[in-house]
């Protein structure tokens, strides 16, 4: 197992380096002069030169790259142009809100998809199965930037059940997490159904029943456990995808997380903060993939021996 973890780490580090390189190069993809772009029209020549020097953009590219990576290792991503604060400090302040939203959305997704997927697998090609198929396709098709405002319209404006926006206690978490979790619920329902349906046909269930176990116990003890392995992987990988989905959801509900911060800093042309936010999400995603793979290998010994 340790070998496997080391091997996966060795695969992840170069990718993390390349991801950081890509994020570093973003600022150089800005058409024209990035510094003039950040300061906007009408900036004084001296202001432009000062900022250029401050950001180190007057140095040779290789030096800029070196200090970017060096800073990254030390947790220093420069300062926000707008807030004048260190980027990492701002990110740390917004990170918990995004994690909270992602966790809540995952719970919503599991609460819908587990019962629906299991029921569909047991009643294959019956009405429940067809309904679950329709629901999962609907779930992955519904735009969350539309679902959010519609939920606000019905549950906040008309029924006055939940706050329209902001982060103030459990009630304020309900609509954002439904908005973000619905697509995942659709995807997971499908996964759980097919994963369990496959297990239900395997000979070991007949063996377990032949040995005197009831069908129900055989399913609960054996099939559900085996069916959960691919689902765990998807849950892990999709958690990272929730972090991106949070960009839109946080914008709709004025949720004070990383996603809203990224969009705000794009509007403010605060590129160091944009870079930092993108990097924070991408590296979290990489880490989650690594953890998921390790958990998967732990659950399924065939993987780590490959």
């Amino acid at each position, binding site marked *: 197992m340790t070998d496997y973890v080391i091997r996966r780490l060795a695969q992840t580090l*170069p*990718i*993390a380096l*390349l*991801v950081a390189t*890509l*994020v570093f190069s*973003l*600022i150089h*993809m*800005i*058409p024209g002069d990035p510094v003039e772009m950040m300061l906007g029209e009408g900036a004084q020549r001296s202001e432009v030169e000062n900022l250029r020097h401050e950001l180190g953009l007057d140095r040779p590219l290789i030096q800029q790259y070196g200090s970017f990576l060096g800073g990254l290792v030390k947790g220093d991503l420069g300062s926000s142009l707008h807030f004048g604060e260190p980027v990492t400090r701002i990110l740390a302040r917004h990170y918990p809100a995004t994690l909270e939203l992602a966790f809540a959305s995952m719970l919503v997704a599991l609460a819908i998809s587990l019962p629906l997927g299991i029921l569909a*697998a047991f009643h*294959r*090609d019956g009405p429940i*199965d*067809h309904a679950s*198929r329709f629901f999962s*396709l*609907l779930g*992955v*098709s*519904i*735009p969350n*930037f*539309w*679902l959010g*405002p*519609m939920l606000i*319209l019905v549950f906040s*404006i008309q029924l006055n059940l939940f706050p329209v926006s902001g982060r103030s206690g459990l009630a304020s978490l309900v609509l954002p997490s439904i908005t973000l979790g619905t697509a995942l619920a659709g995807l997971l329902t*499908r*996964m759980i*159904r*097919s*994963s*369990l*349906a*496959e297990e239900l*046909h395997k000979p070991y269930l007949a063996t377990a029943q032949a040995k005197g176990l009831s069908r129900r116990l055989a399913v609960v003890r054996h099939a559900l456990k085996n069916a959960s392995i*691919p689902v765990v992987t998807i849950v892990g990988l999709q958690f990272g*995808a929730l*972090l*991106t989905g949070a*960009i*839109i959801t946080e*914008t*709709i509900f004025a949720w004070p997380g990383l996603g809203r911060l*990224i*969009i705000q800093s*794009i*509007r403010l042309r605060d*590129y160091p903060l*944009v870079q930092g936010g*993108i990097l924070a*999400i*991408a590296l979290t*995603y*990489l880490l989650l*993939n690594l953890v998921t793979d390790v958990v998967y290998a732990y659950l399924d010994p065939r993987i780590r021996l490959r």
Partner: protein
Amino acid sequence: MAEDYGIPGSGRATLWAGAVLVVVVLLIALFGPLLTPYDPTTLRLEQRLETPSLAHPLGLDELGRDILSRMVYGARISVGVGLSVVILAGLLGTLLGAISGYAGGRVDTVLMRLTDVFLAFPGILLAIALVAVLGPALRHVVLALVVIGWVGYARLVRGQVLQIKEQEFVTAAQAAGVRAPRIVLRHILPNVLPTLLVQASLGMAGAILAEASLSFLGLGIQPPTPSWGAMINAGRSHLLDAPHLALFPGIAILLTVMGLNFLGDGLVDLINPRRRRSGEPRED
């Protein structure tokens, strides 16, 4: 279990429902503008936020523009972006995936590590980053979506090529002295085509949703060009007094994306009837 060997009823139904929805949206995008009575950019400030009526079946927006006309023109943007992204990303991904799978060795390693980097960015994060630095414009949206889209095709085609190149008809062609590009083009890729079609259908759904997301965030299509995503964003500030602004464009996106997803899903069953029987997970 005889029915398991054909497409089960629900699979065929999704295929048809998807195909009909997609054809309708394509027709609206192609011919709709010939039928709309109003220009999508004409302002009628004195009639702003007017609710649906006979003259304006879906009402008027915050600047008094006809919402139905804007949605019809918006369909052109959505379909145009969707098709461009699928074609460009599909071609690029297929080319690189085929090279990677057929050549193997170091070429394969390098190309697959490259896809790993792009896959390290979840969802549309990289597209948001690219459009943020390049600036909001239609061509930048397409570029950004191609940059994140090609990877899926490359991985898919590579996997298929790896399987197919071991088959006897490929070995026979190699033995007969057929050159590699011809083997890939004439013998391998036709076998990958059905799977590619599924990916294209699902990929177009993803691209349309992504374009609308970017436009919703203000990073995509810029006003006054009508875009479904931007229309929903504008409607957000009028949920209280004029909810129809956000309602209708959302339904348009939902039906279009659902049509493409249904189509893709139905195609999977058509190509691989075994899936429903064994409950094989969908590869996407």
